[in-house]
């Protein structure tokens, strides 16, 4: 079981970007969700981002909205998410959680951080927690040895990126575009510019996410970033599959394609 820093260092040693794959916990069920994440890892995903399904995912497009609606209807609670984290950590992959803030606050900030660490989770991505509101979270994650991943956006000023980086650990999540999660045919030109600006302001590894869905795009992003994050594209493979076997095959196929992409960075 390694840390985020070790996962990024290992990828760097292999002259490639780290591959981060997202699926919501409990989608379509707890057990099948765990199997899908294990399939991702077996096919080359380094870091699994376990989504905590939330009723009001205002940063997510239609694919992830549909997935978390399914997960919530299947009875996915925060405890199910933590069980999923433990199962992913058992595969040897680095397990993160991606959660909107309210479920963490309602679970209890300290309690959530303690249970995450106990489950073998390494860090948490909080897309709607701003540094100004993160005081208790910084304390709880520090006390429990968890990394805190915050996002930077193309609209972030340099001063703002500095503030974000000052509370971030593990890696900085650079949003490739202004918008919600989901695939686009081309990666926004804003992404390389944002990564360049982030690099001049922090030594943290920089991973790019939002709108990456193919091996070719992964190779493109791997050319300038330390990590490639793919979420909605995995969700679509599951949504479009006729059955669980089909979903496993689809997730494996995409993870294989992306893993090849991050190993063939296209130098800009």
């Amino acid at each position, binding site marked *: 079981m390694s840390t985020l820093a070790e996962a990024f260092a290992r990828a760097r040693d292999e002259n490639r970007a780290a591959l981060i794959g997202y699926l919501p916990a409990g989608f379509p069920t707890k057990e099948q969700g765990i199997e899908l994440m294990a399939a991702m890892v077996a096919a080359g995903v380094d870091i699994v981002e376990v989504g905590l399904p939330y009723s009001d995912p205002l940063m997510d497009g239609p694919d992830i909205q549909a997935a978390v609606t399914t997960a919530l209807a299947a009875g996915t609670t925060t405890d199910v998410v933590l069980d999923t984290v433990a199962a992913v950590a058992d595969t040897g992959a680095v397990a993160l959680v991606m959660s909107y803030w309210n479920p963490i606050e309602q679970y209890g900030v300290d309690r959530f951080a303690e249970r995450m660490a106990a489950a073998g989770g390494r860090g948490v991505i909080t897309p709607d927690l701003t540094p*100004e*509101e993160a005081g208790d979270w910084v304390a709880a994650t520090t006390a429990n040895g968890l990394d805190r991943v915050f996002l930077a956006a193309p609209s972030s000023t340099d001063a703002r990126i500095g503030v974000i980086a000052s509370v971030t650990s593990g890696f900085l999540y650079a949003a490739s575009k202004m918008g919600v999660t989901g695939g686009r045919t081309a990666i926004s030109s804003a992404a390389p510019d944002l990564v360049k600006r982030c690099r001049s302001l922090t030594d943290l590894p920089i991973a790019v996410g939002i709108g990456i869905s193919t091996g070719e795009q992964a190779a493109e992003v791997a050319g300038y970033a330390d990590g490639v994050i793919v979420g909605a594209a995995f969700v679509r493979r599951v949504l479009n599959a006729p059955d669980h076997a089909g979903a496993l095959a689809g997730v494996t196929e995409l993870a294989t394609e992306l893993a090849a992409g991050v190993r063939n960075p296209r130098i800009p």
Partner: protein
Amino acid sequence: MSTDSTGSPAPRSLDEHGHFGPFGGRFVPEALTAALDELDAEFRAAIVDPEFTTRLVQLERDYTGRPSPLTPALRFGELCGGARVYLKREDLNHTGSHKINNVLGQALLTVRMGKERVIAETGAGQHGVATATAAALMGLECTVYMGEEDTRRQALNVARMKLLGAEVIPVTAGSRTLKDAINEAMRDWVTTVERTHYVLGTVTGPAPFPEMVRYFHQVIGREAREQILAVEGRLPDAVAACVGGGSNAIGIFGAFLDEPSVQLRGYEAGGEGVETGRHASRFAAGRPGVLHGARTYVMQDEWGQTLPSHSISAGLDYPGVGPEHSWLHDTGRATYEPIDDREAMEAFAALCRTEGIIPAIESAHALAGAMRLGRELGPDAVILVNLSGRGDKDVATAAAWFGMDLEGHDLGRAPGGQA
């Protein structure tokens, strides 16, 4: 810093990050931070710029029709324990509700920021209509997000928005009501923020929205205070307002916050009864959490998942509430009570029959509150009620509720389940 009657800091105090005590703040994707910072700076610059404030006052007078009258409701007062009841007539504003006050201010800010498109969420449709109106007036593109359920129960307002040139997008996600319309408007805004301003319709959302929307609605309380002093020679004993997000209530409460003798009473939707779970009573049955960018009272399950709300009134059908109300609640400066659908509709009918005024069903919750208050305070009491909107949009719902025979006249589909 001013203090309230208990000697603690005045509840309206705000820190630099937009907190009302522990409530408010900003919980948003980073992509919106720059836009919120820009909005905050423009708002602060505009309200000390005579060109902006003069233009706003002109629009309020010449376009909205301000000041709105204060109407003594003598016959309705008889049903309120004989108390002297006054109605602040926001229903007589252009577009039929208080919503226009905020929208004109934000539309002027949109022009000032050089943006060419506005988006809005709407529940009852009043805010959507007001935004579409201001957009037409100022030559802005306008898109309004409205829960599919609400487009059905407020069909008249959908037609009004379309006539005004707005695009109305029915939202089919989640509970298909106001909460989901806000999610969808936020998603639009994250994507289009460079050219679009999100005209949030109430005192919720990330800073600076609660403070800014409050500012544009304070005209209600300023006028009402002056008007009631002129008629009664004294302050009212109580001020009653309905509270969905809570903008009309904040607007009228503001002028009386520092007057400990004036009770501030907010009425939230009790729906079919708080005990049934089908209601929108955040204070009676919710707890502090984060929704739509702010920390505030939220209807939620033990895991922090937002619970669906319910009310006969689309405008009160929201599981969150403005953060300043949460602070007023916790400090005890204002008190909040649920009014269920039945009690609201009784007050609705009472005002129609005693005063010849058809109120919005939202405002009927405040009227029901006044009926309770009057019985509590007695015939010497002076009660100020914010009549936040008119009821034209609600005739189909009301007709269905009261079982009226409309002989095949189509007034739009009313919500199911009501006799």
